[in-house]
């Protein structure tokens, strides 16, 4: 049942037999195999505790796998992985003491980019997420949705090839979430970046993704793969279409199967 990293010529990276056991003995991931293809919108969906966030952290290099590894399949990325990755956390994770402009500029400042280049790129990316008027504001003066936009702008400012998002909209109300879903899709389409999106919402993943990986819990493995072929741009019409409902039903069924799947001893597929 588990996919064994089917690599295509367009693969950006592949996880090979990735396992992660924490110091307290919890086995978060076992024999996780999948690839990320250039330009796709890939969602990892699974029950809480299935290690989807851990997988994301391993891809980002924030956490080291206990077994297996991540192979970058595009030349040149290995040299300086960090300039090719943008990460959006579950919380906006902004520096409360810094204005929106300085929060977004942070990745460039840390890399020692010249000030005028920083100004140009930050202004551009704030424009893209609709926050051009709030550059001088402090994070606490913004709403939750706007803070998340700042966080996304910061991830985009380095023009990353790969955007990793860890349940970024989980804490937002539905209206804001729908709006940000649409804006995210627009950013994804205009920048051509690859997105790996972690969520526990089947509905959100179907709406956004070109491909969904359903994961099982404890230890996390890929249980099913779904292609969502509905054309982009997607909008409110897609969200209310019969096709969307059918896809959600399929994804929900796959998730239900994943949650009842027997737990493999020792993580062998």
């Amino acid at each position, binding site marked *: 049942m588990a996919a064994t990293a089917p690599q295509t010529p367009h693969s950006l990276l592949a996880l090979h037999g990735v396992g992660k056991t924490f110091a307290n003995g919890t086995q978060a991931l076992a024999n996780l195999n999948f690839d990320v293809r250039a330009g796709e919108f890939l969602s990892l969906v699974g029950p809480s505790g299935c290690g989807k966030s851990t997988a994301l*952290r391993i891809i*980002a*290099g*924030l956490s080291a796998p206990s077994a297996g590894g991540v192979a970058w399949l595009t030349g040149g990325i290995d040299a*300086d992985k*960090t300039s090719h*990755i943008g*990460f959006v*956390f579950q*919380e906006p*994770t902004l*520096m*409360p*003491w*810094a204005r929106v402009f300085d929060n977004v500029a*942070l*990745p460039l*400042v*840390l*890399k020692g980019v010249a000030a005028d280049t920083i100004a140009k790129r930050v202004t551009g990316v704030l424009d893209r997420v609709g926050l051009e008027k709030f550059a001088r504001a*402090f*994070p*606490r003066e913004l709403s939750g949705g706007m803070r998340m936009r700042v966080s996304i702008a910061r991830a985009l400012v*380095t023009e990353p090839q790969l955007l990793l998002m860890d349940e970024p909209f989980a804490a937002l109300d539905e209206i804001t979430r729908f709006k940000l879903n649409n804006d995210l899709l627009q950013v994804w389409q205009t920048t051509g970046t690859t997105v790996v999106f972690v969520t526990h919402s089947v509905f959100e993943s179907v709406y956004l993704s070109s491909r969904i990986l359903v994961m099982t819990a404890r230890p996390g493995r890929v249980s099913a793969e779904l292609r969502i072929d509905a054309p982009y741009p997607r909008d409110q019409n897609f969200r209310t279409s019969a096709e969307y409902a059918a896809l959600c039903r399929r994804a929900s069924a796959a998730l239900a199967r994943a949650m009842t799947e027997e737990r493999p001893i020792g993580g062998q597929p």
Partner: protein
Amino acid sequence: MTRAEPNRERRDRLLQIALPILVLAVGLALWEAVVRINNIPPYVLPGPGLILRTLVDDWDLLSQSLVVTLATTVEGFLLAAVGGVGLAVLFNQSRFLEYSLYPYAVILQVTPIVAIAPLLLIYLPQPLAVLACAWIVAFFPVLANTTLGLHSVDRNLTDLFSLYGASRRQILWHLKLPSALPYILGGLRIAGGLSLIGAVVAEIAAGSAGAGSGLAYRIAESGYRLNIPRMFGALLLLSAAGIAIFYALSFVNHLALRRWHESALDQEA
């Protein structure tokens, strides 16, 4: 309801100012009355009127002493601020240094300053000994608070900095020190009051050795001469100095944090 709210708030604020003043006025009047009715001689208990007159008459002498004590306090405070923050940063950068030196910083703190002062007066010239006392009592809260602050950095932000390849110096400058700022300022507010106490303790210790001209020395000297009104006058100036220091530091605290930290925000900003 909506009209009554601001009215009640304004009345509340008025009461907050008016009530302490009223208590002061009643207290002073009672004091003056008790002294006059019972004909208490000034060398036992001077009335508030006499104290005020002494303050005016002896202003040249007392103001000189005030300047001396304030100078010691400010110098001790500045040294404590630099030393406390500097040492905390060093400890944070080097575990080796922290383990080696932290216990001695604690010992310096828990040993009563009154007991250390006479020793310092033996080994150091008198102005330097007074300054050392002010520094010893004031620096520990700065060190302890800064250490706490440097350790209280948001984990996600730490991840973010490491994702973008920040150097140790960048992490210190852009993340740890700004995160620690509210703690540092809290430590400084305590240190301001304590450095005044340290200066006073050392002056009293030095005064009994027959030297010095600070306010605390004036108090000790006036005590020997049974010049009780001048004692009260000097005491009044010391209190005023303490209050001024506290409010000055609170103001700095407010300026530095008002835009972003919970502690300095208006209730409904």
